[in-house]
C-alpha cells in the first residue's frame, strides 16, 4: 500500500480490519464495547446483590417451599414400601389378599420401632377419618401378630375390612399428591377414584374464596369512593392545608393495628357508641341494635379504614401532577364542569386509580388480622382458614395448597387487569 492510498482513505487503515471496526489498539470494537458493558453490569449487580440475597432467603425460597409442601407426599412411600409393592398385584376391587396384609404388618413393625407411625396416621387421617385410630391401635399390637395376618388385622380394627383404606394407600402411595388441592377446591375422590364435589355440608373453601374476592372488590370500591374526593381536594389545596389533610389520612398508619381495631369495637359493638347514639336519638329501638361488628360489616368497615391510605397516596401523587390547564382547556372548549371532570380529569387519574385499586385489592385479598379480630363468623376470609390449618389443625399441606391457589388467583387477576387497562395507562 502506497502512502497515497493511506492518505486518501485513512479510516480504512485506522479503524477497520478484516471488515470489522476496531479500536486504537486493534481490538474489535464490539468486543471492547462488550467488555466495558460487562464491567458496568457486574457493578450494577453488586449494588443489588444484598437485596437479592435477602429476597432469596426470606421470600423466594420460603414461597417455593410452601408451594412444594402442597404436593409433597413422603409419608406413605417411606413407611409402607413393602405394602405398596405387594399391592401392585391387587386389582383394587374388594379386600386385598394375605400377602398385602403380611407386608403391611412388616412395614408397621418397622414404623413402630422408628416411631414414624404417627405421621403416617395423620397423613391417612386427612383422607379417611378413622385412619388415625386404626393405625395407632394396630401398630401397637402388630409385634404380637402371627400369620395369617389378614384375620388379625380385621380383628384389630374394622377399617382394615374396608377396601377404601387400601384404595387410598394405593392412590396416595406416590411421592407427589394432588389430594390437598382436591380438598382445597371442595372436591373429593369417589370409590372409583374420580374427583367429585364434596357433600354440600362439607364445602367451605370455594365459597370462602368467592367471599374473599367479593369482599376485597367491595373494600377496593369503598376506598376509591372515599379516597377519590379527599385526594382531589388535597391536590387542589395549597400545600399547607394539603399536608394537614394528609396527616389525617396517614393517621391510621401511625396507630397500632390493635388500637385501631379496638377503637372500632368500641364504636360498633351492640353496646357501642354508634348503637347507643341511634337508640338515644330514637332511630332504632333498644331490641334492634345494629350488628356492625363480629360480622362481615365489621370486617369491611375496619379494612376500608385501614387500607384507605393505600388508595389515597397513589391517587394524590397522580392528581398532583395533572396541571389545571387541562380542565380549563376543556371548559374553554365548551364543556360544563361535570363533563370536563368526567371526560378530561378522571381519565388522567386512571393510573392512580389503577395503582391504588391493585394495591388495596391485593393487600385485602390476603388480609388476616382484621377479619380475625372483628370478622366473627361471616367476616372470615380465606387467610383466616389458611392460618387455622397452619396453627390449629396443623395440616400444612392443605394450608399450602390454599395459599398457592390464592397466590395463583392474584397473579391471574393481575394479568387480566394488565391486559384490560395496563396498555391504556402506559400510553397516558
Amino acid at each position, binding site marked *: 500500500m502506497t502512502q497515497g492510498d493511506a492518505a486518501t482513505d485513512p479510516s480504512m487503515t485506522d479503524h477497520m480490519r478484516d471488515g470489522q471496526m476496531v479500536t486504537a489498539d486493534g481490538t474489535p470494537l464490539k468486543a471492547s464495547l462488550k467488555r466495558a458493558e460487562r464491567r458496568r453490569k457486574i457493578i450494577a449487580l453488586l449494588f443489588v446483590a444484598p437485596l437479592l440475597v435477602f429476597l432469596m432467603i426470606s421470600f423466594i425460597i420460603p414461597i417455593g417451599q410452601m408451594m412444594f409442601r402442597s404436593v409433597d407426599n413422603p409419608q406413605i412411600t417411606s413407611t409402607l414400601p413393602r405394602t405398596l409393592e405387594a399391592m401392585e398385584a391387587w386389582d383394587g376391587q374388594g379386600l386385598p389378599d394375605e400377602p398385602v396384609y403380611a407386608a403391611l404388618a412388616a412395614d408397621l413393625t418397622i414404623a413402630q420401632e422408628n416411631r414414624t407411625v404417627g405421621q403416617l396416621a395423620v397423613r391417612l387421617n386427612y383422607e379417611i377419618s378413622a385412619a388415625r385410630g386404626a393405625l395407632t391401635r394396630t401398630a401397637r399390637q402388630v409385634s404380637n401378630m402371627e400369620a395369617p395376618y389378614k384375620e388379625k388385622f380385621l380383628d384389630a380394627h374394622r377399617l382394615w375390612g374396608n377396601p377404601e383404606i387400601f384404595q387410598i394407600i394405593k392412590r396416595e402411595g406416590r411421592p407427589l399428591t394432588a389430594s390437598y388441592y382436591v380438598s382445597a377446591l371442595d372436591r373429593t375422590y369417589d370409590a372409583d377414584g374420580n374427583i367429585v364435589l364434596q357433600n354440600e355440608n362439607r364445602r367451605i373453601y370455594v365459597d370462602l374464596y368467592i367471599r374473599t374476592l367479593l369482599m376485597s372488590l367491595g373494600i377496593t370500591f369503598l376506598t376509591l369512593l372515599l379516597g377519590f374526593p379527599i385526594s382531589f381536594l388535597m391536590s387542589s389545596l395549597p400545600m399547607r392545608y394539603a399536608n394537614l389533610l394528609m396527616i389525617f389520612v396517614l393517621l391510621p398508619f401511625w396507630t397500632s393495628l390493635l388500637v385501631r381495631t379496638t377503637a372500632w369495637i368500641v364504636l360498633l359493638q351492640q353496646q357501642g357508641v354508634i348503637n347507643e347514639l341511634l337508640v338515644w336519638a330514637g332511630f332504632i329501638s333498644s331490641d334492634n341494635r345494629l350488628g356492625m361488628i363480629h360480622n362481615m360489616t365489621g370486617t369491611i368497615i375496619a379494612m376500608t379504614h385501614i387500607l384507605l391510605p393505600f388508595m389515597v397516596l397513589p391517587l394524590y401523587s397522580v392528581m398532583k401532577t395533572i396541571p389545571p390547564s387541562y380542565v380549563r382547556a376543556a371548559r*374553554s372548549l365548551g364543556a360544563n364542569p361535570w363533563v370536563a371532570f368526567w371526560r378530561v380529569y378522571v381519565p388522567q387519574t386512571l393510573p392512580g386509580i389503577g395503582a391504588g385499586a391493585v394495591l388495596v385489592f391485593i393487600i385485602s385479598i390476603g388480609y388476616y388480622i382484621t377479619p380475625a379480630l372483628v370478622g366473627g363468623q361471616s367476616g372470615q376470609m380465606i387467610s383466616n382458614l389458611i392460618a387455622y390449618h397452619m396453627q390449629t389443625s396443623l395440616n400444612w399441606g392443605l394450608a399450602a395448597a390454599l395459599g398457592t391457589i390464592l397466590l395463583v388467583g392474584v397473579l391471574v387477576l393481575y394479568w387480566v387487569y394488565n391486559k384490560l387497562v395496563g396498555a391504556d395507562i402506559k400510553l*397516558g
Partner: protein
Amino acid sequence: MDNGNPSEAFVAFERVQKSYDGEELVVKDLNLAIGKGEFLTMLGPSGSGKTTCLMMLAGFETATYGDILLDGNAINNIPPHKRGIGMVFQNYALFPHMTIGENLAFPLEVRGMGKSEREEKVKRALAMVQMESFAGRRPAQLSGGQQQRVALARALVFEPELVLMDEPLGALDKNLRERMQYEIKHLHDQLGITVVYVTHDQTEALTMSDRIAVFDDGRIQQLAPPADLYERPENAFVAQFIGENNKLMGKVDSVDGESAMVRLDDGSLVKSLRVCVNEPGEETTLSLRPERVLVADDGKDYDNTFEAVVEELIYLGDHIRSRVNVCGNRDFIMKVPNSSDHHSMAVGQKVRVGWSMQDCRALDAS
C-alpha cells in the same frame, strides 16, 4: 392614553382590579378596549399580570373589582364554558388520553353536533394547520411544533370569535417560533377573528400585533401599534423594554413648547422632545435609539452634538456597533452604518456624534 372607546369595543376591561390574597393588587385599574378583528398583544415581563388578565377574560379567575364586557355585555357572571372563547395554553393542554381527532372533536361533541358534521369540521380545522394526516395519533406522539398546531386548530374548530393565547410559542425553538408567528398571523387575517395574545417576547409582539399593551406592575404602561411603541415610547419603562435604548439621566433646565433643555449629570445640556416633563427642575430620563445617533462629520446641522470617545467596536457586517463615552456615560451605544464613504473608527479615537431633538425623548425619571 387612548384605550379606545369602550362602548364600541368587542372586548372591554373597565376599571378592572385583581388581587389573589387580599393584600396585593396584581392587576391595578385596567382599562382596555379591543376592537373586533383586532390582534392585540399583552407584552410585559414575567409576573406583570398578563396571564391573570387573560384568565379573567376566559372566566377562570374573577375580577376583584370592575367589569369585563364581551360584545357590550358584562360577562363577570358567565361561566367559562358559556363564553365561547377559544384558548391556546402555553403547554398546549392537549388531552393526552384522546387522539388528535378526538381532541378536536371534543368542543363540537359537547355542543351536541352530529357525527358527520363533526368529522367534516375536524378535517377542515386540521387542514388549516397542515395536520390532516395526524388525526389518529396521540398528543405524546407529536413534536412540540405539531402539538402547537393542533392546539391552535382545537381552539379554532368551534369557530369562536375571540381567541386567547397565553405564550403559545414559549416552548418552541427559535426557527419554529418564527414560522408559527407568521402562521398565526395569517390565520388571524384569514378568519377575521379577534385575538388577545400574551407574550414576554417583544419581537414576537412587534411582528404579530395590531396593537400592543405593554404591562408592568399590574398596569398598562402604553397601548399603541408596534411602530409607535418603538418610535414614541411614552415612559422610561417602555423605552427600555422595547428594543435597544440609550438612557441619559438629568434634570430639566428649561421648557419651551414641545422641546425641553435637559442638564445631564456631567453638566452638558441636551435639547430633547418634551414627553413627560412639565417644568424646570424635574428629574427626567432621556431615551435615544442607538440607530438615531450619527457621526457628526458630514457638516449637517444637528440639534445636539457632543464629543465622544470610542470605547469598543463590534463588527456586525451591515453595521458597526460602537460603545462610546458621551457626556460621562460610558455605556452609550451607537450603530454606525457600514458604508464606503464612512471614516473607519478606532478604539480611543475622538469623534463628534449628533442627534436630533425629535429622537431624544425626555421621559419620566424612573
